[in-house]
């Protein structure tokens, strides 16, 4: 089974989730005995091929076109469809990021393919692809199989390991795809959030605050602890709705799905829609003054107490 993997980039760089996709696709190609082609799109792609090679692509397809520097649903859909046709792959793998969640269904519709979205595990045996994915805000895990090929698969970021391989040189080729006349939804502006802040979906440690933090100013404690740990700040919807924190930090069904190694939730009750965004974290710590708060049921470690007392002690202890 030949596989095409789309390697997601942002700002000229390969995103960590893009490499996770390459590694997972490599594994599937090994099982299925097929060829793995990685596709990169945008500008100045040549200097990125080495990085993709290390993770096991047999060949790399570059779609060098400035019209693909920024994401447009139609531009990317056309480019990826062209790559699919050029390689004759049966399976298209990509990431379930903000970009991938938009692109995967569009590509599946274009290719008349089975869509297996937001996977947290993938198996390929006896010619059949079977995946698991969280549904109902994570209250259930669904197992989904594809009855036919082609298949478009999107992988939940941080659910798959990145493993370096012995570098074998991949065959690099270019594909010309004219997309500009296909793009009707034109990207006219991109506003990056201020500063070089670590994105919660890519952070290994997240310190998140909820309404129990009481005031916007108290989030200084959350920020300080996140800084000390080299992590990112997360927030519940209640505090985003109160405009204490930007929506880009919101974790949960309406915000982002994260799976860091360590998630510290301070003053967060643990509503189902919040859990939907963070329950796959490796280790969860809850700080809440209510011993009955539901968050404790989903946590590995808990401290019952006032976050405004516990957090300063934590900041100090971590610094030691």
């Amino acid at each position: 089974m030949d596989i095409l993997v789309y390697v997601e980039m942002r700002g000229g760089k390969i995103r960590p989730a893009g490499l996770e996709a390459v590694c997972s696709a490599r594994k599937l190609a090994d099982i299925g005995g097929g060829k793995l082609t990685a596709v990169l799109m945008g500008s100045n792609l040549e200097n990125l091929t080495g990085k993709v090679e290390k993770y096991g692509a047999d060949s790399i397809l570059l779609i060098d076109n400035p019209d693909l520097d920024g994401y447009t649903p139609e531009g990317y859909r056309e480019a990826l469809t062209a790559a699919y046709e050029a390689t004759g792959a049966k399976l298209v793998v990509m990431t379930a990021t903000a970009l991938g969640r938009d692109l995967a269904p569009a590509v599946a519709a274009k290719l008349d393919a089975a869509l297996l979205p937001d996977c947290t595990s993938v198996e390929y045996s006896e010619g059949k692809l079977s995946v698991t994915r969280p549904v109902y805000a994570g209250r259930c895990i669904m197992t989904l199989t594809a009855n036919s090929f082609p298949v478009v698969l999107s992988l939940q970021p941080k659910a798959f390991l990145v493993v370096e391989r012995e570098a074998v040189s991949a065959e690099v080729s270019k594909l010309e795809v004219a997309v500009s006349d296909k793009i009707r939804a034109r990207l006219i502006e991109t506003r990056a959030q201020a500063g070089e802040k670590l994105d919660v979906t890519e952070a290994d440690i997240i310190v998140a605050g909820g309404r129990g933090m009481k005031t916007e100013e108290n989030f200084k404690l959350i920020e300080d602890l996140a800084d000390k740990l080299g992590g990112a700040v997360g927030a519940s919807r209640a505090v985003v709705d109160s405009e204490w924190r930007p929506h880009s930090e919101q974790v949960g069904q309406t915000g982002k799905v994260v799976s860091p190694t360590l998630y510290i939730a301070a003053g967060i009750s643990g509503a189902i829609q919040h859990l939907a965004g963070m329950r796959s974290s490796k280790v969860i710590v809850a700080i809440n003054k209510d011993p009955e708060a539901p968050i404790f049921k989903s946590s590995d470690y808990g401290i019952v107490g006032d976050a405004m007392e516990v957090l300063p002690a934590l900041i100090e202890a971590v610094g030691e």
Partner: protein
Amino acid sequence: MKIAVLVKLVPDTEASLKIGEDRRYISKEDINFVLNPFDEYAVEEALLQKAKHGGSVTVISLGGDEAVKALRNSLAMGADDAVHLKTPGGLDMLGVARTLAAALKDKGYDLFFAGKQAVDDDCGAVGPMVATLLDIPHVSVVTKLEVETDKLIAEREFETGTEVYEVPLPALITTQKGLNEPRYASLKGIMMAKKKTIEEVDVEQITAKAETVGLAYPPMRPPGKIVGEGAEAVPELIRLLKEEAKVL
């Protein structure tokens, strides 16, 4: 402006779910079903655009008899017409999208809305799929929208910022929280909605390309430890994170 909104009935997000005996679907007994929360933003936005540009709002739902509730709720909010695409189930994502697209095609709609995701399957797939099948442009997960007579400007979120798109009509938008504040249905709206006829259309079964073969509860986390109370518990927490969990 002729506007179509895709709406779906889903289990209330607060409902505690039981997996049915078939181990493939949830048991539908004893749970409250509601209009998908993200579809409320879609209906609201359609109503706001109608208020500005005139025209009509048609809501469409694909599903069994239960889908009627999603349509009545949308009518009660103020939608003009409703279409129920009747299916006994068994469709996959693409099947749903194909059926919806077929019902929407060549009806002269200028603007289409869907929710960013349905909170049952949590896919977020139907909007982009329907747009692709209708061969119209789309923007998903939209938090700000400006509609003019022949184009729209939409803002969409990504992980670390916002992207702004300019799109000619007809186009499809999927709605995210922040776009508007969905209205509550008025008593009068609810009464009116009861009297409206819902157009029923039987749909053809499409062979599913993807199939749900199992549904399970997520693996239980081992029961968590309450390390202690207040700031005194911090040293022990740090020790556990370092030595037991090995994450620091």
